[in-house]
């Protein structure tokens, strides 16, 4: 695996559905951009209202979780220097049932307003959670509607079990070890969601080469190409 330099961007737009999606996969990359004073907007579509980690004995309820996760999201955004955090007010686990045009328009409006040179989101078809998939489809549709030479770059996160065999390895690898502390702070900010993983990390299972070790040292993206690999349907 060959790592590369993070390119200088005009504006980075990050779109994910859940508080903590940004921390796991891309917080190192975000920290690198914000470290250069590149504007980064994070549009977080839901508050992760349906999170299941409530503890036993419980530390939260179905009703108190959204406020807890909102506070965690703000803290995580601060840890990695995000200046423009937007909570878009949709509801966890409902995105695939939303009106597809409305989902696409939400992304289109953000693009028109911010004119990003790079958008970061999930890879459609390879991001496991139905909300991830619905988000990815909305982003792909919005970007695809833009004239080809005016499209922002689209870097996607994929982690489905069949990713490697179907779309191959990521084409972008960043070494994020110099922003390790910021990524760790972002992960810790989402403590209601990450406590189990952080416990594993402290117990020393994150040996060189393990998935957990990799997560804190490198970040990987698949560049989305609007060619025969583009499997996102038009809105019916």
């Amino acid at each position, binding site marked *: 695996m060959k790592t590369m330099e993070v390119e200088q961007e005009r504006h980075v737009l990050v779109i994910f559905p859940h508080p903590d999606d940004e921390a796991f996969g891309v917080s190192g990359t975000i920290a690198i951009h914000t470290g250069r004073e590149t504007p980064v907007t994070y549009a977080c579509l839901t508050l992760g209202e349906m999170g299941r*980690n*409530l503890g*036993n004995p419980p530390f939260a*309820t*179905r*009703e*108190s979780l959204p406020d807890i996760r909102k506070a965690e999201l703000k803290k995580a955004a601060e840890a990695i220097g995000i200046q423009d955090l937007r909570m878009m007010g949709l509801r966890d686990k409902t995105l695939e049932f939303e009106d597809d045009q409305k989902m696409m328009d939400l992304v289109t409006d953000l693009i028109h307003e911010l004119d990003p040179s790079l958008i970061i989101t999930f890879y459609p078809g390879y991001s496991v959670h139905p909300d991830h998939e619905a988000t990815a489809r909305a982003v792909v549709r919005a970007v695809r509607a833009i004239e080809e030479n005016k499209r922002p770059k689209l870097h996607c996160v994929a982690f489905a*079990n069949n990713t490697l065999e179907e779309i191959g390895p990521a084409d972008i690898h960043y070494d994020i070890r110099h922003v390790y502390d910021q990524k760790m702070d972002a992960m810790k900010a989402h403590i209601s969601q990450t406590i*189990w993983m952080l416990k594993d990390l402290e117990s020393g299972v994150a040996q060189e080469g393990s998935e957990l070790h990799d997560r804190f040292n490198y970040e990987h993206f698949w560049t989305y190409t609007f060619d025969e690999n583009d499997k996102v349907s038009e809105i019916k």
Partner: protein
Amino acid sequence: MEPILPDKVQELIDRFAGEEIYLHLETTNGAYASHFNEKFFSAGAYIRNAKLIYEHGKIVGDGPYRVGLKLEIGWVYAEGLTHYGFDEDGHLLMAGHDFDGKLAVALQIGKTPFK
């Protein structure tokens, strides 16, 4: 949330009987169940702010508990309930937390809609 005290919860269920209530019912094994175990059959159901009236309700079992609500022409029930409590609006929250501290089921009743 506190571990369920069946007598206490029965009293609370009785308090909402015969009145128009808003109901939240959810079962879930999480969106990642089939990702971590491809042989796992993922299933769940969710209803939020269903408006209904139940004639009577009952909590049964030795823990985890089951709660059933009898409607004029139907039923609502949930099983696997371990904890109960209230939110800031005074809604009755009942939930089943599994051995790893993950929510598996929730049944919630209130006189005003859930947010």
